[in-house]
């Protein structure tokens, strides 16, 4: 008799862009997963790595959009305290459940950044083997 293992679901998210909007999307998607006790593995590449630098998290609130009305509305909502800033949401999610952020080793090398240069939200610096392993477990990748 074959007994199938009942796997715990897992969500992997690849974030490549580093604007406020992109990080907001990241935090929102991750919140849905953590809310149902689904572990989340985030892999940051390219501009997102820059956005996770210690001095950028919590300060870079520039909304980039092709739609000026949307950018203004989002900025107003942020300034009015109606939207949870992405860094606060990700921090809360780490408290609520299992969420891990890894930054791409290649981009960290290019930018000459070490672990201590990143915000405390970042768990480690790793390469594609680590990401591939997470994807293999999750059977899915959400790309931002």
């Amino acid at each position, binding site marked *: 008799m074959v007994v199938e293992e009942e796997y715990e679901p897992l969500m992997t998210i690849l974030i490549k862009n580093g604007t406020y909007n992109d990080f907001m999307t990241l935090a929102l998607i991750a*919140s849905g997963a953590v809310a149902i006790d689904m572990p989340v593995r985030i892999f940051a590449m390219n501009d997102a790595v820059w956005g996770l630098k210690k001095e950028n998290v919590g300060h870079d609130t520039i909304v980039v959009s092709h739609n000026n009305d949307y950018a203004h509305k989002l900025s107003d909502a942020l300034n009015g305290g*109606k939207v949870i800033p992405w860094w606060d949401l990700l921090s809360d999610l780490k408290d609520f459940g299992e969420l891990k952020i890894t930054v791409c080793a290649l981009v960290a090398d290019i930018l000459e950044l070490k672990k201590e240069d990143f915000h405390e939200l970042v768990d480690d610096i790793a390469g594609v083997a680590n990401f591939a392993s997470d994807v293999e*477990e999750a059977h899915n990748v959400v790309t931002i």
Partner: protein
Amino acid sequence: MSQKIVIDARGAYCPGPLMELVKTIKENTIGTVVELLSSDEGSIVDIPKWVEKANHKMVEIIEDDGFRHFVVEIGEKKQRRRRR
């Protein structure tokens, strides 16, 4: 009768109300009743779906003036087998 905890998340946008509910439920025990007040339009879909998925009980949803009351009774936490 168990105590009812009221969370006033009116004015907060998605996922604020859901996060407030998740946080409160994690901090309390089975049988506790939590009433969430939310003006977020998405809550009418999100909150009942999460409550069902997380094995809690949606006691009632009351329409009010520009917001809704979501009354939830905390259920037994689902246990999942770890992958590794």
